């Protein structure tokens, strides 16, 4: 008996029609075969084999039949199906794209040995002591209670010559054990040897696979050849495997003995430490040990904000960086949209089912079972979802591309089987989510004559629809309030005066390292001639130069400055500038003067500070004439001017103290020319590039771009996150209002007779509309209140999206809620207005 029960359960795998038609025969056949007395194992293998061979075929056949029927039904009113597909495609597409991005960023294994044991020691206090000598690092790693080994490295963008041309690439100076630590084998040649960490033996380099291909044509004889990094020769000993470019897209690696002058640096050296966890030490324990070590070394550092506080992160988390949290929040938001879309489509399909009730009831009366109707509607929903999923995959490709443009340096997600599987899985799941309710509802339809007169199925359906609408409103208010909050923050951020103008400003960068112009006098002559030629170009109003351009991603240097009397000042960013640089960026000089051509080595040493720096000197006027010197340099400089404080890192950042020194009294091998222009930018940039080539064709000119494009790059992420959330919010509101309209309009159409009676008894259309509004709005308002509570509870999540985003306030909720309530009210009134067209005499005649 038990085996027959099992077989009966297995028969449920067959689609409804076949099962209902032949279940009795199949069971009888089962009994008869068993009575023939075959061994149990053989018998069951045969039964299961038969099921495996026939269930899929029967399912496909019935699904095809059901779908043909559905297509005919939906073709009569294609809007519902098209709308459902569009809404779901958007949800599934964006979710799939974001899944691909997150998968690449967070969940996929990194191509290193045991990547989960590789950790990044973010903001290790006193990391400079590890750079005193190679042994300092190894001694520290050896006695560490949580690390097996550690590597220290720094990277900088430098000129590299060796192939046919000089290229500008990221060069990483590292302790010799970096590749061994990461478990990376060379594609060609060898890794660094431990003895290459000694002076005189560290003239070796490993190049990236990409550089090997592009600069050396994949020539295996590349080993032993010499490349020059900023003019210093290195011997190539290895080629890294394809795709390896850690850290920061490095193309060349060299072992370091921490001789900073050997390769002239253009930026600031920022040493980073990576380690491999000791065997048996779990990550949490290592994190606790690291924090204990960090707070022992520098307790003050622990009070810094999250970006500057010491933290032990897995390499994966470090690589994902600041994009991780926003991507997760956006993923949550898009799942919210998808859920709303599901609710909406369920609602729509339910309406369709109610419209089709008579058809379905007649089919039921003619013998179609509940299971059969349930199956048909479920197949319909799954098919809709799969079509939407297919469209969604196309959309996902766009999402992936946008994400890649926003996160340079991150590996770009590819549409692969994991993304496809996610899309198909999500489509099936959404199909089930929005399909089950209408299907379940249909399976409860009565087949009696009484039910055929309509009405009996309305009550539970109305409740389901109200609940679905309320759910959508709740989710919508969450997204809308989030969008309002982010939008408000973003607008406020963009309105802040950055202290410079970006419109109509062109920039070009040059690097003299490794060229014949590198040395003192020739260097100055180059800059002077270049600036003179740029200034006379047509369309150029004003031209200057600086070594650290605001908004660019050049590394900056913070240095200690002291007053002549020994008083220490806050750490300030130093920059080297040429005269009229401030004018070119429209940064006002608030006190004193700008640099002059005559501020050279022979003249008195001077400096210009910004307002933020001047504040610690007693204000702009009081700062003038004071003498400051950098802690590393004993030459005092007289402050001759104070300029307006500017946001070096762009909107959303804080102004920081800055000290500018004239180029004539300092040195810089890399400089960015800044041109304020009239008219079109492109021709000015082209002629400026030509002018620089005219000064010396061997000096590489790069980063030719407008300040506006720097600004766009800097604000791309917040703009994207804000734009996306606002769009999701509005789309959700659109879906929710549409759902509300459909619900009310359906309920009004169901109450035609009641409305007719009310009109006949003296009610006016206005009164009836008011009545419908009064009956419908409480659901909306209740859902709004519930949604607001959810937002305020979850609001903190949003502040993770942008550093600058504040928590969602009740004002944001009110704004979003009020807006939503208004359009909801309008939608209800529009749905109710058909009451005014009712003719009581016509409505009541059948009664």
């Amino acid at each position, binding site marked *: 008996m038990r085996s027959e029960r099992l077989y009966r359960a297995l028969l449920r795998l067959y689609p409804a029609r076949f099962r209902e038609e032949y279940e009795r025969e199949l069971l009888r056949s089962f009994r008869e075969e068993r009575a023939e007395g075959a061994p149990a194992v053989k018998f069951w293998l045969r039964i299961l084999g*038969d099921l495996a061979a026939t269930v899929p075929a029967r399912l496909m056949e019935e699904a095809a039949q059901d779908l043909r029927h559905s297509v005919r039904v939906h073709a009569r009113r294609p809007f519902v199906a098209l709308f459902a597909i569009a809404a779901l495609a958007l949800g599934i597409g964006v979710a799939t794209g974001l899944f691909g991005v997150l998968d690449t960023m967070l969940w996929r294994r990194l191509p290193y040995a045991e990547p989960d044991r590789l950790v990044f020691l973010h903001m290790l206090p006193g990391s400079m002591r590890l750079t005193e000598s190679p042994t300092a690092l190894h001694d520290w790693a050896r006695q560490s209670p949580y690390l097996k080994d550690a590597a220290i490295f720094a990277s900088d963008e430098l000129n590299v010559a060796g192939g046919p041309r000089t290229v500008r690439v990221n060069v990483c100076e590292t302790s010799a054990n970096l590749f061994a630590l990461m478990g990376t084998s060379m594609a060609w040649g060898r890794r660094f040897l431990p003895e290459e960490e000694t002076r005189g033996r560290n003239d070796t380099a490993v190049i990236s696979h990409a550089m090997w291909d592009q600069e050396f044509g994949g020539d295996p004889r590349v080993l032993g050849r010499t490349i020059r990094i900023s003019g210093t020769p290195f011997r190539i000993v290895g080629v890294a495997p394809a795709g390896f470019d850690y850290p920061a897209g490095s193309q060349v690696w060299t072992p370091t003995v921490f001789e900073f002058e050997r390769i002239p640096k253009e930026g600031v050296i920022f040493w980073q430490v990576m380690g491999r966890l000791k065997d048996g030490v779990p990550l949490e324990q290592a994190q606790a040990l690291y924090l204990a070590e960090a707070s022992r070394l520098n307790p003050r550092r622990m009070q810094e904000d999250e970006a500057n506080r010491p933290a032990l992160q897995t390499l994966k988390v470090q690589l994902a960086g600041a994009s991780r949290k926003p991507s997760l929040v956006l993923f949550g938001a898009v799942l919210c949209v998808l859920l709303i879309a599901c609710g909406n489509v369920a609602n729509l399909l339910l309406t369709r089912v109610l419209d089709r009730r008579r058809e379905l009831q007649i089919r039921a009366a003619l013998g179609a079972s509940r299971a059969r109707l349930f199956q048909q509607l479920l197949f319909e929903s799954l098919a809709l979802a799969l079509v939407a999923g297919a469209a969604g995959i196309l959309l996902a490709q766009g999402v992936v591309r946008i994400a890649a443009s926003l996160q340079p340096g991150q590996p770009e997600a590819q549409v692969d089987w994991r993304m496809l599987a996610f899309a198909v899985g999500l489509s099936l799941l959404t199909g089930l989510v929005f399909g089950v309710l209408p299907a379940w509802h249909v399976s409860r339809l009565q087949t009696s004559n009484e039910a055929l007169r309509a009405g009996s199925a309305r009550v539970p359906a109305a409740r389901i629809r109200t609940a679905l609408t309320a759910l959508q409103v709740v989710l919508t208010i969450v997204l809308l309030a989030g969008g309002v909050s982010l939008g408000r923050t973003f607008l406020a951020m963009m309105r802040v005066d950055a202290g410079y103008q970006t419109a109509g400003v062109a920039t070009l960068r040059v690097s003299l390292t490794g060229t014949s112009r590198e040395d003192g006098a020739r260097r100055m002559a180059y800059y002077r001639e270049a600036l003179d030629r740029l200034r006379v170009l047509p369309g150029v109003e004003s031209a200057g130069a600086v070594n650290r351009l605001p908004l660019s991603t050049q590394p900056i240097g913070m240095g200690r400055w002291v007053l002549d009397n020994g008083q220490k000042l806050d750490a300030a960013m130093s920059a080297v500038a040429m005269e009229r640089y401030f004018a070119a960026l429209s940064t006002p000089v608030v006190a004193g003067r700008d640099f002059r051509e005559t501020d050279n080595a022979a003249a008195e040493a001077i400096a210009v500070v910004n307002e933020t720096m001047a504040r610690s000197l007693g204000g702009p006027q009081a700062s003038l004439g004071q003498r400051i010197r950098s802690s590393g340099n004993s030459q005092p400089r007289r402050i001759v001017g104070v300029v307006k404080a500017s946001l070096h890192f762009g909107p959303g950042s804080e102004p920081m103290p800055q000290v500018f020194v004239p180029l004539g009294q300092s040195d810089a091998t890399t400089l960015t020319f800044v041109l304020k222009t009239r008219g079109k930018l492109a021709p000015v940039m082209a002629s400026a590039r030509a002018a620089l080539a005219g000064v010396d064709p061997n000096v590489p000119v790069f980063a030719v771009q407008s300040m506006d494009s720097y600004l766009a790059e800097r604000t791309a992420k917040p703009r994207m996150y804000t734009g996306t959330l606002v769009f999701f919010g509005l789309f959700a509101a659109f879906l929710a209002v549409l759902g509300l309209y459909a619900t009310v309009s359906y309920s009004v159409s169901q109450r035609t007779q009641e409305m007719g009676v009310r009109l006949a008894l003296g009610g006016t259309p206005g009164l009836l509309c008011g009545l419908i509004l009064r009956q419908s709005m409480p659901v909306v308002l209740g859902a709004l209140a519930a949604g607001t509570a959810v937002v305020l509870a979850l609001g903190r999540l949003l502040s993770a999206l942008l550093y600058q985003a504040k928590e969602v306030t009740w004002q944001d909720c009110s704004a979003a809620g009020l807006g939503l309530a208004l359009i909801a009210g309008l939608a209800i009134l529009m749905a109710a207005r058909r009451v005014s067209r009712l003719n009581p005499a016509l409505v009541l005649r059948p009664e």
Partner: protein
Amino acid sequence: MPKSQPLDPTQFLPLPPLAFHILLCLGDGERHGYALKREIAKRTEGRLNPGAGSLYGTIQKLLEHGLIEESGERPDPHLDDERRRYFRMSELGLAVAQAEAARMRALVELSATRFGLGEPV
């Protein structure tokens, strides 16, 4: 499935082996499912022994295409008192079975001229 126009039997060719065997059995008269199954197994000496799912799946298709039809429900006098569904061949089914046999014969004749015929196994 009622069809207004007479169907061309060749459009069903080639018939799956199980479908052809079912038509062969029904050529002798009405049968119920289990009798069909036993007869096919016996006729092919066990080489074709369809499972219930395959058998009724094929029966369903033959019914849908109008090659067989149901001839009512009654007990099998040889087996037990349970009522069983009996099937019989339709005119279209007969025409299709004949067309399939002709197709096979043509194949057999062609094979015989090319490489002779072996002993039946």
